[in-house]
């Protein structure tokens, strides 16, 4: 059901509307190589990289596969694979 003018009246609608389906490439984080520099976390334009108990994970529900994290990781802990492979 679309509202008049497509207005969103409730906060948090992005919990329902997952946007990760646009992804062509999937970034894969190797936790063993990760030095916890936070570069990927800082540069992720979608806030799809989360830090939980000092460990970094990628939330694939919202990651759109821009691969900025792959580019920014100084120790090459994040690599890319094509989606669906």
């Amino acid at each position, binding site marked *: 059901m679309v509202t008049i003018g*497509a207005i969103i009246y409730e906060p948090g609608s992005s919990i329902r509307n997952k946007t990760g389906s646009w992804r062509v490439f999937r970034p894969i984080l190797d936790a063993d190589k990760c030095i916890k520099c936070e570069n990927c976390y800082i540069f992720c334009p979608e806030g799809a990289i989360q830090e939980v108990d000092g460990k970094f994970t990628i939330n694939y529900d919202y990651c759109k596969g821009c691969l900025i994290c792959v580019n920014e990781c100084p120790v090459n802990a994040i690599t890319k694979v094509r989606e669906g492979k």
Partner: protein
Amino acid sequence: MCKVKVITGTSAAAEAAKLADVDVIAAYPITPQTTCVEKLAEFVANGELDAEFIKVESEHSAMSACIGASATGARTFTATASQGLALMHEMLFIAAGMRLPIVMMNANRALSAPINIWNDQQDSISQRDTGWIQFYVEDNQETLDTILQAYRIGEHEDVLLPVMVNLDGFILTHTVEPVTIPSEENAKAFVGVYEPKHAYLDPDRPITQGCVGVPECYMETRYAVEKAMENAKKVIKEIHDEFAEKFKRSYGNGLIEEYNMENADTVIVAMGSVCGTIKEVIDRLKEKGKEVGLLRVRCYRPFPAEDIAKALKDAENIAVLDKNISLGINKGALYLDLASTVRDKKVVNYIVGLGGRDIRIEDIEKIISHVEVAKDGETAWIGLKE
């Protein structure tokens, strides 16, 4: 107490915006609209109108500011013409898609090139698919009356769409006519206070506007605008009738106006100020015992197809006058819409008055005698030099 002032069309539009007690005006001056926003700037400056007048650097910004203002729940007005309206083009879709009941006066003027400041209706016709309700008025009084009605129509909960009130550049914008101006009290009682229920700015009720419409929902939003257009036909008639009862001035049924249609085999279909000339010709012919009718399309979007088909059911020769041209098909927009509505009749298209070319009484007479012998679907350019 109402009073009669002898004013131009742009002044009539400014008076209407003042009577509607608008909250925000954002506009950029462009010929032949300028005097409308000059007048409004004057009203705001001397304290006659309590509104924000936003001076912007272009029409794109003017419409953007109006969208922002309307999205907070403010009653909003702007005015433009020709190239200015064209510059607003992408923002017009946004105003309609966000369902913001902005009211705009447009002074109909030709588009470049060559540079031409005079009247035709190509500018607003080119915006017909943006989701704006479009009115084409015949005189200055109707300009004022239609803008007052426009706020009621646009803000109606079954509609919630922006409304464009088009008046012919110079022919109406710069010609003075006696205009009855309703009292502030009566106008306010009619227009009422806008209480936005869908788009507002309220820290206690946060909302997100102008969000992304993914393929899963975009089509439904466009369909919703189409339904609102459909609803608008009924609302326009109702509000027109309410206005007519209250102010004793009416314009057909609000969507179309029929003039001398009872016994007429030949009917002219037209929009805007040229209808005044056509009525004059019809009266002269009537004296000579010849019956010709006029069907004035007052509301062009939503297109009153059912009303038009009903009004033309007995007509034999239909002449559609267009002050615009869809290049590459050699037809005007009104003809194309009407031909898809009235399929079993002879309909002939006349391209008239482009770029301010006068449409004289002789031209109308020529059209009337031509349509009676013309073939269905023909197009004739009237007054075109060899």
